């Protein structure tokens, strides 16, 4: 396999953790070594976490822009839906390991963050497109009829009525896409030297010391939960009517 250059270089026994310090739990190769985590937080884990957030935010933002544009188009012109679904579904089903390796030889991509982002964006499209389109289509006909009957233009209907009413579906799509990207972005370490995938790959390659793997994995899971929670809060703030039910 064509591994990218790793941040900390190859493992040197008995320094399993790859850092400069060497701790008792590290030498004894316990399953989890707290001392390693605390001494490697600033040089390894924290930068990796920040890079992971950046990778995720960029991918979801670009994916959201593309799929929202396509969904708005498909909302007006129905024939757009099928080809978009077909293409994005194929992208979605490409195994992620293969995706990064397939993109790498393409001109202009190579071993870069761009390659990672292209792959990550392609996984968000199907979910975001389908949710946004469904949200727009589920606006009740009578609501649209009333809006038009009161003199709103198609554009005003979209902005003032359809998009706000589609928000719950749109944010639901964003939640799934974000969690998916957080998980997949660990594999991005195959093509770019960024994110929580880097310490995970280091740990896999040294094969014995697992603390780095566990720490980075736990951080990825925590990040996914945090991002999901954040989007739940955003939805609550943006859609107060969803909580209003018959008193």
């Amino acid at each position, binding site marked *: 396999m064509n591994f990218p250059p790793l941040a900390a270089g190859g493992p040197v026994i008995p320094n399993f953790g790859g850092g400069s310090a060497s701790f008792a739990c590290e030498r004894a190769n316990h399953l989890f070594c707290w001392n390693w985590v605390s001494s490697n937080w600033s040089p390894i884990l924290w930068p990796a976490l920040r890079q992971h957030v950046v990778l995720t935010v960029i991918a979801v933002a670009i994916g959201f822009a593309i799929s929202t544009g396509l969904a708005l188009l498909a909302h007006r012109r129905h024939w757009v839906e099928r080809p978009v679904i077909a293409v994005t579904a194929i992208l979605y089903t490409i195994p992620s390991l293969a995706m990064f390796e397939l993109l790498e030889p393409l001109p202009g991509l190579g071993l870069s963050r761009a390659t990672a982002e292209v792959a990550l964006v392609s996984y968000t499209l199907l979910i975001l497109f389908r949710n946004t389109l469904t949200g727009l289509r589920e606006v009740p006909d009578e*609501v649209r009829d009333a809006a038009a009957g*009161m003199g709103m233009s198609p554009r005003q209907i979209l902005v003032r009525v359809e998009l706000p009413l589609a928000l719950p579906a749109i944010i639901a799509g964003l939640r799934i896409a974000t969690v998916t990207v957080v998980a997949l972005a660990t594999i991005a370490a195959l093509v770019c030297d960024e994110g929580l995938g880097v310490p995970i790959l280091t740990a896999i390659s040294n094969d014995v010391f697992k603390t780095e793997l566990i720490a980075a994995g736990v951080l990825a899971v925590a990040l996914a939960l945090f991002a999901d929670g954040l989007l739940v809060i955003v939805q609550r703030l943006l859609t107060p009517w969803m909580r209003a039910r018959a008193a």
Partner: protein
Amino acid sequence: MHSAGQPTPQTGDSSLPRPHTAQSEGPSAFPQAAELELIHVEKRYPGQRQPAIPDLSLTVPAGEVCVLVGPSGSGKTTAMRLINRMIPLSGGDIRLGGESILKREPTELRKQIGYVIQQIGLFPHQTVSENIATVPRLLGWHSSRIEGRTRELLELTGLDAGEIGARYPAQLSGGQRQRVGVARALAADPPLMLMDEPFGAIDPINRVRLQDEFLRLQAQVRKTVVFVTHDIDEAIKMGDRIAILREGGHLAQYDRPEEILTNPADEFVAQFVGADRALKRLGLSTLAELELLAPNGRQPDENRLPVTATIRDALSAVLSAGGAPLTVVDGDGAVVGLATLELLGGLLKAGEPPER
């Protein structure tokens, strides 16, 4: 009485049969209510041999309620939706306040026409106040003016502005939603209101209450109203004029309710208004309009009704009391007169229903 049972032959091109009235440019400030004229209105859908509406002409005087009533397939909703250009006209013309609707941008026109549909279509993501403010906002009113108008309309439709205004539609009862729908349609004080089966989804008890409320409201605001229903009783109750449409979009009769009940234009109308049309006619007048017999010192008894009751209800009360005379009381409960079976029954004949 117009009867358009036969399509009026159209002469020459589609030029309008009436001379032009005063032209006003742009979004003119309409009066509180405006006369509505449908002139040889025609609607054809592509790919259909029969027109949905072949040739419909009728005039609704300013401030009157015109009910379009008929069985399904009679084109009543289509006719209504032609007026605010939700459906494009195929032929003829429609004028509001003397001005052709075809001269105006559909979105501008619709802001001047109140619109209430059966499912109401309140915006679920907006509060009641925001819903009511829809058209004023589109018209770019000042927020203070919108706020005042919203409050006024909530009160006018019998809703508590403080309590209901901040709620979302999901938090309202069916009747409240209906009132908000009417308030929203009245927001910019349009000269014309279109109402498509506005009370159709409401249970019978609340429907009667909403109908009464709307009639009280209409007595205050005096809008020109086009009201669509399939229920002849509702048509008789709500309409100053009733247009009875039959299948194929033909106008069978357009007249005042008393006239339709007394002199149905043809067999179709007679059947549509029902065999009990003589009784229905009695439902149009109240005891107050009747010359009652002198009370001769009678005290109000079990069998009494207020003067505001309809003659139909009075007849029903007399019959259920085995023919005993009814004491009619005023608002304070004092007896103003007596109604006997002879007196009430005589009214059934007076209208001279046509012999069959």
